[in-house]
């Protein structure tokens, strides 16, 4: 079943030298699957995620031939209706829990806030849901953690709290923008595992935005490679080695390997791309 259909998406920002397209004609369809979007800083990958959620701030503008989520045309949606969708049906996990959690509200209250806005539950029911969802993101002592403030938990736990906040309303689509790049390697795998588990069990669609080609490849059903606002290549799982576009090949070869013996790493030659 198709969750999301995007045709010819363009995101434009004005600049001193006239309008600049940061996303240029991107098309994709997403079912209940894991899609990876990979590219460098400035490739337009994060802007794509934000455009789908209707979070491009003015003076930026978004146009598309089609932008459809669960049959709803997002292009003509009012801000009020969009807000009802966001959080409830589609949500976003951001890179750094340090900056995305409110420092003066307890973890439990922050998660409960989404329930307060979107659902009519009693305080007791909300409390139960909060503990359930903390357990779902593998937080061992949810009762204790719910009472803590963000500065009292580690980065890895913070990111799990963010995920808990996003899944408490059981959205159909989750967009994770670099969900692990602020985390230590030792907890990255765990966070990805949790996301994976949620996608499988709750049948969510997931868009994972990252600059880490290898992680995304190991982890997603399909990968889109973006460069300068365009999709340059689309690959299935395990096809990474078969990538043809010089940009993808360049990115792959510029990553050092654990058994590295090259004297110099190849660098992307942007003038030939």
């Amino acid at each position, binding site marked *: 079943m198709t969750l999301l259909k995007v045709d010819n998406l363009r995101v434009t920002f004005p600049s001193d030298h006239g309008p600049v397209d940061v996303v240029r004609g991107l098309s994709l369809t997403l079912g209940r699957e894991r899609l990876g979007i990979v590219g460098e800083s400035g490739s337009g990958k994060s802007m794509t995620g934000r455009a789908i959620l209707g979070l491009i701030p003015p003076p930026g503008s978004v146009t598309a031939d089609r932008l459809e989520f669960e049959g709803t045309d997002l292009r003509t949606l009012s801000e009020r209706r969009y807000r009802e969708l966001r959080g409830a049906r589609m949500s976003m996990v951001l890179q750094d829990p340090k900056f995305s959690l409110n420092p003066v509200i307890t973890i439990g209250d922050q998660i409960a806030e989404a329930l307060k806005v979107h659902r009519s539950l009693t305080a007791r029911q909300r409390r139960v849901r909060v503990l359930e969802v903390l357990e779902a993101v593998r937080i061992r002592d949810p009762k204790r953690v719910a009472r803590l403030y963000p500065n009292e938990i*580690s980065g890895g736990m913070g990111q799990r709290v963010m995920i808990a906040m996003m899944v408490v309303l059981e959205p159909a689509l989750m967009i994770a923008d670099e969900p692990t790049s602020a985390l230590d*390697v*030792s907890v990255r795998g765990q966070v990805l595992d949790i996301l994976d588990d949620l996608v499988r069990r709750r049948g969510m669609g997931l868009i994972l935005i990252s600059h880490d080609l290898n992680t995304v490849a190991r982890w997603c059903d399909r990968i889109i490679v973006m460069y300068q606002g365009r999709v340059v290549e689309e690959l299935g799982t395990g096809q990474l080695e078969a990538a043809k576009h010089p940009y993808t090949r360049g990115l792959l070869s*510029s990553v050092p*390997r654990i*058994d*590295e013996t*090259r004297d110099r790493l190849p*660098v992307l030659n942007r003038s030939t791309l």
Partner: protein
Amino acid sequence: MIRVSDLTVRFGQTTVLHNVSFSVTGGESFALVGESGSGKSTILKALAGQITNWSGALEIANEPLSPGKRARLARKVQMVFQDPYGSLHPRHSLDDTLSEPLIIHGLPDRDARVLAMLDAVGLPRRFRFRLPHQLSGGQRQRVAIARALMLDPPVLLLDEPTSALDVSVQAEILNLLKGLREERQLTFLLVTHDLPVVSFLCDRLAILKSGRIEEEARVDALRAGRFETGYGQELVKRSRDG
């Protein structure tokens, strides 16, 4: 070139480093790897004089360190930090940033030295009077490396120098560091959690866990995935599985 013996660091009740000892010879590139909280950055901070409540013995370039010898230390050892956005003064041009150490130490030929350093780290000379916000992340990291090298120290401490960068830019900075080390016979002490970077840039490494060195090995052992301790094996496995 660097000797660390029985380094112990306590913050309040907690001991973060327990009798850590290792040494790095001149021209060698040595890595400290481990998870967050293993104490690897604390070792760098002690060597750079950023923390003073350590015990044990530290020596850089045949000079024993003790708290309070900062100015002399600056010509022996310099540090490159992880975040190129946070480690440069936002209102100082590249010229200000690179000239400052020369002014402090009263060195002549500032003009020529700044230009030579821009060339050495691959920054165009026309960038000389730009401010950090006019540069990309990779260019800023080049400035941070240039700043560290202005006083010609024999030792560079590198704290996750590429983990905030895109992979394609990471490759450029890693190549630059490797080239500079060869040209200037620098000694590197690198802190990272990224084992492939160690494989590319280093000769030897020490694996830290909870403030203790678990294992010291040559980089060949890392490439072959043959560490002696279980913890070393686990790190390699995690790195492979992402």
